């Protein structure tokens, strides 16, 4: 078991002929990901590394039984690519594209509502289930199969955390980067809910950032509905208010969204809050030891 992505996942890559799309598709294949199709309008009928390319997502679903879409298209074309994947009925969309306007994401959220499709991203590093494969940017070498679930708003900081775990011999069930935009397909709660229900996952690492209220909402959810131990870190304690720290979502505005507020909310919810990110791996190690679990 794992969450959202497993051995049954069959990936179609939208934007497979672009430089990002083709490079990361190759990387994911090295992790034994089943990439069954690619889509680039106008390039249907061609192949990339033996992977058939179609004009439409619907064809990839029908002919190759694709059930996961990885999206690497340029921002201006991405809302359309997402709508097409939803209409084609894939169960999971993982969207790496950066720079989608917020107004477009409001439409995307409407389209996702009531559909059978879940979306990770946009502007995210993707999802990796060690042993089953990945969609997205996460470097291949950092992962190890195991029982810790990782969920994060960041990219490289997520790699850092996963690498710390792996360095201590602690493997991961699934690692999910939900993305740094103000509006994302799946929030912390959607992922926490699945980790809680996943028998393989024994502990959860949650990496947040300043800005918005996603961490506070997650804290509320954890208090009521998560029984597994959660270790957390929030990036941006020293960020000045009113400045966007790279990610469109990482901005302290009107005195809201500070790291301290988030730390406090998480602590109140019984989350083990570690303010030194270099110590996250060791905190997880202690928890797993106390539970008598072999990682």
């Amino acid at each position, binding site marked *: 078991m794992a969450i959202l992505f497993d051995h049954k996942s069959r990936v179609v890559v939208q934007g497979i002929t672009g430089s990002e799309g083709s490079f990361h598709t190759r990387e994911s294949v090295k992790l034994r990901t089943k990439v069954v199709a690619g889509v680039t309008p106008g390039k249907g009928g061609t192949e990339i590394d033996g992977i058939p390319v179609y004009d439409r997502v619907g064809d990839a679903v029908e002919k190759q039984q694709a059930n996961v879409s990885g999206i690497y298209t340029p*921002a*201006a074309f991405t809302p359309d690519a997402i709508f097409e994947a939803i209409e084609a009925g894939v169960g999971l969309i993982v969207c790496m594209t950066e*720079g*989608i*306007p*917020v*107004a477009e*994401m*409001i439409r995307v*959220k*409407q389209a996702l509502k009531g559909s059978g499709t879940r979306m990770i991203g946009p502007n995210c*590093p993707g999802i990796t289930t060690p042993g089953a494969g990945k969609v997205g*940017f*996460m*470097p291949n*070498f*950092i992962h190890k199969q195991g029982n810790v679930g990782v969920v*994060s*708003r*960041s*990219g*490289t*900081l*997520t*790699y*850092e955390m996963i*690498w710390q775990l792996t360095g201590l011999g602690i493997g991961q069930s699934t690692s999910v980067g939900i993305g*740094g935009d*103000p*509006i994302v397909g799946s*929030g912390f*709660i959607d992922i926490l809910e699945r980790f809680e229900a996943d028998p393989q996952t024994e502990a959860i690492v949650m*990496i947040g*950032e300043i800005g*918005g*209220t*996603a961490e506070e*909402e997650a804290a509320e959810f954890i208090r009521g509905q998560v029984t597994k131990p959660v270790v957390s*870190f929030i*990036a*941006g*304690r*020293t*960020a*000045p208010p*009113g*400045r*966007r*720290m*790279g*990610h*469109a*979502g*990482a901005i302290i505005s*009107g*005195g809201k969204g500070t*790291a301290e507020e988030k730390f406090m909310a998480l602590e109140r919810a019984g989350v083990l809050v570690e303010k*030194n*990110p*270099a110590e996250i791996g060791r905190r997880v190690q202690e928890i797993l030891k106390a539970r008598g679990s072999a990682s």
Partner: protein
Amino acid sequence: MKIHEYQAKELLRGYGIPVPRGKAAATPDEAREAAEELQGKTVVKAQIHAGGRGKGGGVKPAASPDEAFAAARAILGMQLVTHQTGPEGKKVRSVLVEEASAIRKELYLSLVVDRSKGRECVVFMASEAGGMDIEQVVATAPEKIVKCAVHPAVGFSPFQARKLSAALGLNAEQQKPFAEIVRNLYRLFLEKDCSLLEINPLAITEDGRLLALDTKINFDDDGLYRHPEIRELRDPDEEDPLEVAAKNAAVNYIKLDGNVGCMVNGAGLAMTTMDMIKMAGGEPANFLDVGGGASAEQIEKAFRILTSDPNVKCILVNIFGGILRCDRVSAGLIQAAKNIEMKLPMVVRLQGTNVEEGRRMLQESGLRFTVADGLYEAAEKAVSLTR
């Protein structure tokens, strides 16, 4: 992206929203001409990208064109300090001269994006307590702010204007023009990819008309690609010159007040590196994310930006190579250090893709730098080098 008040008012005017007649001026003479054209009493307002201008002495009434000239002469070139500019203030390069209006009441009306889970949409916020102290109202009496969410699949509907109008205590005659204002504001917000649209105050004049007396419009940077006309409104004078250089180099840089310069890949890791420096007892000089696809040239440009901040005493490079390969980072560092004759001490922490190759290149380059393995170790070493 932010724009000036006079630009925002032009946009509002284009959408049929009533604003005072006015004209921007860059010299006292232009201000006098503008006042002559407008006739009667005017107000001269400093144009900077920050609020609180009135309290800081950046807004002056003028009874005649000569007074407008004098007011502009006093304001233009001043270093205007408000609660939003920081202690050093902002230099005023232009003023808006506009007709003075007799005001009976000041209201507040704005649009923002509600990003909270399950409710993602555009929201109107309105309050009868408009004017200069709205931030205090938000903090102390949030119940005085009435919110009205617009369902994205439904769009604006007239009942919402009626709801807001009731909250603002408008009379029967004001309702129709107000409904028009609300409808057009929503249209403007969506069509131009705004991230904040604020009218404060939305004034009721002595003769009962509604008038957008001051306004602030911010745009979603991610939407700018489809609005060339909005991109043209950018004022580089309002931005930090180092940040402008960074933008041109496609590097994400924000200047801060400390002395440890940081170069990091990824926004989350860059923020974390700043946090670690603080935790080790130091102060970061900047936020800098070189991004995932950085080339050696970009690394060099980032380096130049870092080192041109005179406060920087030590540089901390923290790279977790994923897409960005460590050997490429090393090549950039070596190239930069040679080209700009780097004299500052440097701490380098490399991890991830092609790390061995990256480290070997640095060792063999003859560059002087301190190596660190861990996140915290790197921050500690960098902070100690500033002392």
